[in-house]
Each structure stands twice: as C-alpha cells, then as structure tokens.
C-alpha cells in the first residue's frame, strides 16, 4: 500500500477478504451447541389469535422449545418502540399502538410472528414451526392508506382512532393561501410514491448466546448501528442492562436503512437463548425478508405550485398521506415529517410553503427509512411539479429551474432548513453539458426513424445529510442524540487504530477513514486499522445511515486526530528542545521548521509509551477520543439528466444515457463516492421503472419473492456518466456533505420526466411498468387522433 490521503482513489483495504470468500457475516458465525430458530408467522393480515397448540411441534425430533408471546410478556420483555415523538397540529402526541415481538392477541400484518421454535437444525426448526397450530379468527383488513382513513375502515389499533397516527403540519398556511390567491399560474398534481422493499442481499440474521455464570448476553446481528441496538434492547426491551450485553455487527451485507431498526426476531433470539440455555441462531429467508424488513416510501400526495407572471414560484402547498404499515417502526414517524417536508423547498427560493402530513396504520409490513428516507419522496414530488409547471408555462425545464434557484447562502427556507452552501447553476450546467442536452433534438429524430420514442428529463435535487444537531433534533422529538464518537489509538510502534461508532456495510470505511490518518500523519494506510461494529470495543456510536459517516463520523475522527496531533507535537517539541509551534508533521515525521531536526512518528509514539522523557505533568500514552455534534445538516445537491427510449409496441423503457452531476463537498475517495452514486442511482431507477410492493385487498403481499418483485438487474440499467462540482460545507472540519443517498433521491423524477417527455403524456405513476407506459401512450395517441 502507500500513503494515500484525501482525494486519492485508494483501492479498498477490506476487499481481499470479500473476494477470497473470507468475509465474516452473521450467518457465518458458529457457536458450540447452538440451536436454530424458526418463526411461526401469521398467514392473515388481521386476525385474533385464539389459541396456539404447540404439542405436536414439541414432540418432533430435535425440538427444544416453542415460545409464545404470553411467555415473552410474562418475562417482562418490553414492546418495540418508535424513537421519534411527533405531535399533531392540535398539539396531541402521536397515537401509537403496542407492538410485541411475539404477538399473543391480534396479528396485524401477514408474516407477523406469533411463536418461535428452537431446534437442533434449521430444517427441524422449520418442520416444527409448520406443525404449530394457531387458531386465528380472521378480522377485516385494510392495506391502502386512504381507505384506512375512511369512515368504517377496519380499526387496527385501539390507540389510533380511525387509524390516524398523527395529523402534522409545517409552514405558514396563511402565507401559502395568499400566494395561491395571487398566482398567475397554478400547477396541480396527484403524486404517488410507490412502496419499496429495501432488499440488501444479505438477509437479516441473529446469533444470540447467554452466559449464565456472568449473566451476560452476546448478540451477533446484521445491524447498521450496534450501539443503538444495545441501547434499545437494554433500556426498552429489558433484555439485559447495557454492561451485560455485547452487540457485534460483523460484516454486514448491505443495509439501505433496513438494518437500522431493532426487529422482533433479533430480540427474540436473545430472550430465547437464556430460556433454552443454548445459543440461538436465526437467518431470514428472502420471503421472510419481504414480509418483515421495514418497507420504504408509500406516500399519496396532492401538490400545488403557485407562480407569478414571471414564472417565479410564490408558493407550494402539499397534502400527503403516508402509510406506516401495521406498527410504528423505530424512526418511522420522522421519515414523512422532518426528513420529508423540510426538503420541499428543493433548490428553489420559495417564499411560502405549507405541508400537511397524515400518517396511517394499515395491515401491511411496517414502513421506515429506506435509502433517502423522506428526501426521495420530497424530491420526486417537487421535481415532477417543476417539470410539469415548465411544460405548462412553456419554459424549458432548465430555464424554469434556473429562474427559481437559490443563489445566496445561507438561505433560510420556510420549512426549517437553512442551506449553508451550494452552487446549483454549476451542477445544472455540468449535467447538461455532460448529457449533450443541446444535441437531444437530433437524437430524438434519429430514434424516431427507428420507431423509438426518445425523451429527456431533469431532476435538480437537494437533500439533507448528517441529521443534526442533537439539541435541534431533540426539540423536534428525536429520542436520541445524533452525534458521533471516535477514538484514535496510536500504538507504541506508531501504527494506528481508529475506533469509530460508524458502521460499514459496504461503504468502505476501512479505506476512507484510513485515508484521513494517512493524510494527517503521512502514514501508509496499511499502518492504520479501523475498528467498528462491536460494543465491547467501541464505547458508543450512533451508526451509519442518512449519509452521516463522512460528515459526522469522520468529523469525530478529525477531532480526535487534532488532539493526538497536539500531544504528539508537544512530545516532539520537548524531545527536540524546540517550540511547539515550530513542529510540522510531514511524510510520517515530526520536524522542527527551518532545521534538519526530526523524529519519526514511530519514535514519538514510542516516547509517549516509554514515558522516560515526557514534558512535565504529561500523562503517558497517545490515545484520544472525541465526540462530534454537528452544527447543522449538510446539503448535498446536484442535477441528474436521464435520457430514455420507449418502445411504443411494448412500452418498455430503455435508459440510453444517464448523467449525474453532484456536489458532495470535499470528497475523500472519489472511487468509493462514485460507487455510492452508482448504487443509489440503480435503486432510484428501480423505484422509477421496476419495483413495487404490491398487496391484494386481503393484505397478502403479492411481491414476496424475486419471482414477483422486480429487482434491477445488470441488463436493466446503463453505465453512468458522473461528474462533481465542489462547494465546501462550512459546518464541518473537512467540508464534507454526504453521498450515500443522493443517487436514490435524485434519479426517480429524472427517469419519469424523461418517459413523460418521450410519450407526451404526464399521467404516469411509478413504477413506470411497460404495460402502464404502453397503455398511456396508446390512449394519448387515441386522444390525439380524435
């Protein structure tokens, strides 16, 4: 390896284990004597549990136990929680129903667990789970959020009358009213944001063990935030106090939000491991994942944009109904509120915005944050409105956007956010240039000669990453602080271990974080190791989600590095009898400016630990920790241009060109950042073209495997053209913004705007399946002919 600092396309240090089959994921872990869990799940969307007969199952070979919700409740295990309190506009707190990890009374979605079997082998456990007889009394179910709010809809939780969880608002309703009263033009749309299933390729898994001598639990699990898991398991579920519980998230095969939450199964494995007196492992199969991993999106909105005579936006009015499924998952309440409506101003100077959000219980899988979490919903709504408004008033989509861009910073929007820095013209210009926007007309004509409909669409997104500061989110209802911690341990031989509360499940932290140290001390990245994902090693951390590991996690490392550097300089100055201010670190050495005196980093580290000759009063050692609490969100932004060809005979859309121009602030490793964008883009394109969690009216999930849920494959998507423009974030030491979600946030409207441009009809909902596009184009042609 080499010294590879900020900006280097360093190859990933973690890759070798993954490309040689030596990764260690939860399902790869084996503990002596472990048993295997299989869950008994409801086949009904809504039913009363009248009885559970486990006698046949208990008699089957290898079966240790069949445990039910009554036993769970009897053991004092607490309900699952939602960690963000939202108040309705009338001031009342959200109406939250109880959620037990094994349900003893009423099941509320297909796949909800009512019992667990522990047996010697996975097959025996599955066989026995099938033999548990549950007596259900079916109840009427409702899956659609609007229907769930209608009078007479099945009542899902006694705590939430009419299935309404909260009725929340943001912004100035009167100011918006006035803007619409005086508008020269109003654009109105109904917009649906389709329900998605996150689908990390590694299904969730847990391996729990209990040491009865120490009264101590260990949990290996597929988590994006093991410390938060430990906190919740301890403080709310009463499994064990924090110091008696170790949570390890080893290699984790993708998360995309779905592995933030603390689900029933992981907790039941912990509880069961003590109950049955052996380690208990559970590995989700893919259909279980479809039924129980938190889903994403699922909004129905009415949106209106008011323009003045110069086509400047004067107001935005949004009414959204968000389907939260059968239970309130950990961060579910924050997603359609503070992570959504606060981004409705987009890149535009909009003087008045009002949004009303109603959240609703339905008999479907719980919905929570999925890559982008609220921001894709806001961006899709606004960017479809913008494209539509531009078409209606006869301006080019780019010109209409330019006319409304925010250009002076800081910019306070009417919906809480204060944008700190950005240059939206720069990313729009870069994207249009890379996409050869000017050459589109010729390409469209050429495509027409081949019988294809070509279209082009824009999306100018903004998002908010590194959700913060803790005091601010606390005042908005968050149950946790959203800082990050880090510890930098310099070993006596000068190698460095960085302990971070961030968690890497594909993001390449072992490389990117090492580059920070390499840059700072001039060390080979091989001399640095990144330690994460184990509550016994790292003191605390908030984990990785919301594109926060760079802007928040790395900022904490920088703060710790500042302290290490200061102490190292003090030691070096003392040893070389120089002034502290004259010490410079360069190429792995500490030098006295203007002289040839120098010490290697290793010599200084060793001196810190031998402690034979340290400045008076200095403690031995070279190890520093830091907590970093951001002062503001960061605001990545950019422009995406999508160009499509639609086959009018089949309705199939092919993406023939896709350009992403992003402003992520300071980029540490461009190779890794590009990879994040590629992945995000395909998830966004998947939402736009392919993916949809579809329920029948009885609450059966029709898309519960890859036979029916359309995952983007390699031949569904193109290679991408990426470009970046850098404006530094003023709020953190490196000027970073966050890149993990942008692709998924910005791409869906670009795709849909391109298709509606191609077929000349705007009434298109995601996913733009071939049949929908075909039917829409046919009816547009028929109308044109009439």
């Amino acid at each position: 390896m080499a010294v590879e600092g900020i900006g280097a396309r360093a190859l990933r240090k973690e890759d070798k284990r993954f490309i040689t089959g030596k990764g260690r994921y939860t399902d790869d872990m084996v503990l002596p004597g472990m048993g295997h869990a299989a869950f008994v799940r409801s086949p009904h969307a809504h039913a009363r549990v009248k009885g559970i007969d486990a006698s046949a199952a208990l008699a089957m070979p290898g079966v240790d136990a069949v445990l039910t919700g009554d036993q769970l409740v009897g053991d004092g295990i607490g309900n699952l929680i939602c960690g963000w309190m939202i108040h309705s506009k009338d001031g009342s707190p959200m109406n939250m129903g109880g959620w037990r990890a094994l349900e003893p009374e009423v099941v509320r979605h297909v796949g909800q667990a009512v019992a667990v079997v522990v047996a010697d082998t996975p097959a025996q456990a599955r066989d026995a789970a099938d033999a548990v007889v549950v007596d259900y009394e079916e109840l009427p179910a409702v899956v659609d959020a609007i229907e769930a709010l209608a009078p007479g809809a099945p009542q899902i939780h006694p705590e939430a009358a009419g299935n309404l969880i909260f009725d929340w608002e943001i912004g100035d309703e009167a100011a918006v009213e006035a803007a619409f009263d005086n508008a020269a033009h109003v654009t109105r749309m109904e917009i649906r944001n389709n329900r998605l299933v996150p689908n990390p390729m590694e299904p969730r898994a847990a391996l729990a063990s209990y040491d009865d001598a120490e009264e101590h639990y260990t949990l290996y699990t597929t988590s994006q935030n093991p410390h938060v898991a430990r906190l919740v398991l301890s403080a709310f579920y009463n499994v064990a106090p924090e110091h008696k519980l170790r949570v390890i998230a080893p290699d984790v095969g993708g998360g995309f939000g779905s592995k933030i939450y603390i689900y029933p199964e992981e907790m039941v494995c912990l509880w069961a491991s003590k109950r049955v007196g052996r380690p208990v492992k559970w590995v989700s199969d893919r259909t279980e994942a479809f039924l129980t991993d938190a889903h994403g999106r699922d909004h129905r909105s009415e949106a209106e944009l008011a323009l003045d005579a110069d086509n400047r936006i004067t107001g935005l009015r949004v009414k959204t109904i968000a389907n939260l499924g059968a239970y309130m998952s950990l961060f579910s309440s924050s997603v359609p509120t503070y992570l959504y409506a606060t981004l409705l101003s987009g890149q535009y100077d909009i003087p008045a915005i009002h949004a009303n959000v109603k959240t609703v219980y339905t008999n479907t899988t719980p919905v929570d944050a999925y890559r982008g979490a609220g921001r894709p919903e806001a961006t899709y709504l606004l960017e479809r409105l913008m494209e539509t408004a531009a078409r209606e008033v006869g301006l080019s989509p780019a010109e209409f956007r330019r006319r409304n861009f925010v250009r002076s910073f800081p910019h306070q929007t009417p919906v809480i956010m204060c944008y700190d820095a950005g240059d939206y013209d720069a990313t729009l210009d870069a994207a249009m240039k890379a996409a050869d926007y000017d050459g589109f007309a010729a390409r469209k004509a050429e495509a027409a000669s081949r019988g294809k409909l070509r279209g082009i669409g824009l999306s100018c997104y903004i998002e908010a990453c590194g959700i913060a500061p803790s005091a601010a989110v606390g005042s908005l209802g968050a149950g946790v602080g959203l800082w990050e911690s880090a510890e930098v341990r310099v070993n006596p031989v000068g190698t460095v271990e960085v302990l971070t509360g961030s968690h890497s499940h594909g993001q390449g932290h072992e490389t990117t974080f090492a580059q920070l140290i390499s840059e700072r001390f001039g060390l080979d990245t091989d001399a640095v190791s990144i330690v994460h994902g184990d509550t016994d090693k790292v003191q605390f951390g908030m984990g990785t989600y919301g594109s926060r590991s760079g802007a928040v996690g790395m900022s904490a490392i920088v703060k710790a590095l500042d302290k290490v550097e200061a102490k190292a300089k003090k030691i070096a100055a003392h040893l070389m009898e120089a002034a502290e201010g004259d010490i410079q670190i360069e190429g792995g050495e500490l030098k006295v400016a203007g002289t040839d005196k120098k010490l290697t980093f290793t010599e200084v580290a060793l001196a810190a630990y031998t402690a034979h000759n340290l400045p008076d009063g200095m403690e031995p050692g070279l190890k520093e920790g830091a907590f970093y609490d951001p002062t503001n969100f960061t605001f990545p932004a950019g422009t995406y241009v999508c160009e499509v060809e639609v086959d009018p005979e089949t309705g199939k859309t092919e993406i023939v060109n896709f350009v992403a121009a992003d402003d992520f602030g300071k980029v540490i490793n461009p190779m890794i950042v590009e990879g994040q964008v590629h992945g995000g883009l395909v998830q966004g394109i998947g939402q736009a073209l392919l993916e949809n969690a579809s329920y029948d009216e009885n609450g059966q999930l029709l898309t519960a495997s890859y036979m029916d849920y359309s995952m983007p494959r390699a031949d569904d998507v193109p290679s991408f053209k990426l470009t970046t423009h850098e404006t530094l974030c003023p709020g953190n030491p490196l000027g970073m913004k966050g890149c993990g979600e942008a692709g998924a946030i910005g791409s869906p409207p670009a795709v849909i705007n391109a298709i509606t441009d191609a077929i000349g009809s705007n009434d298109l909902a995601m996913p733009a399946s071939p049949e929908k596009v075909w039917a829409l184009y046919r009816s547009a042609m028929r109308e044109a002919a009439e």
Partner: protein
Amino acid sequence: MSKVSMVLNGKPVAADVEDRTLLVSFIREVRGLTGTHVGCDTSQCGACVVHVDGKAVKSCTMLAAQADGAEVVTLEGLASGGALHPVQAAFKENHGLQCGFCTPGMIMSAVDMINRHGAGNLDETTIRHELEGNICRCTGYHNIVKAIKAASDQMAGMAQAAE
C-alpha cells in the same frame, strides 16, 4: 441419510447428510466454507453460484446428493498458490464490490462467463445480459461490468503473452 463424496476445491471430501441437504448447505455447514452465500429462495440472486464439473450452477438449487462424484469449486478455491485469480483482482481494482455479499456469486459467474465466451470476447452488452442470474443491490452493476470486462481483456492478453 446418504453418503455424499465430492472433490471440493481440489480436496476429496465425504459426509453423511440428509438427502434434502442442498449443495450450498453441504459447502457452508458441513464443510465450513462460508464464502458461498444464500440471498434468496427462488434461484434468482446468484449469491450461491459455484462451479460443478467446470460449470457455474446455483448451489442453492442443487442437492448435495446430485453433486456426488463431482468436482466442485467455490470462491475459496479460485486463487491458486496465494495469487488472486484475475477476476478477483479485477473486482478489487475496479471497485466491483461494496458489501461483498453478492461478490462470491458474481466472481464465480464472471469466471464461467469468460470461460464460455473466451477471454477478450466480452462486450458490455453481453456481460450485462450474462449477469441476468446475479443480483447486486450495492454497486448498480457499473463497476462489476467494468471489472469483468477488464479481467476478460487482461486474461486475453495473458493468453497471448503465453503463446
């Protein structure tokens, strides 16, 4: 129960297993080689691809008993003498992996693809089509396609140099 014998990564192995044991379970649970993964139940995701008698197959859709007497190679058996296979190296050099979970199947499918088409004979369209049975949720495929193309071309160069 049946006795199943095979040559796994060059080494003869045998075990008594239930007849319903899948090849992937034999590899992972009986032999402890956890580099082969299971990502779905319906034979679509390809995380479990291994080579049986030189051909890529989905080890979650084959019984261990069907592989009795066969030669099986998993990701762990691909590198020889400490040197990475060119496809493995290309995945690293081109950032063709993120979380690493689909990677075993991707690499085994890529090697098979290059074997069938001949090194140097793969273009982007062909690679994307050939990856129909391997799903990745992290990379958006961009760098996987790049890695396979690079490996294919590099292997063609190696073959030429060897002549």
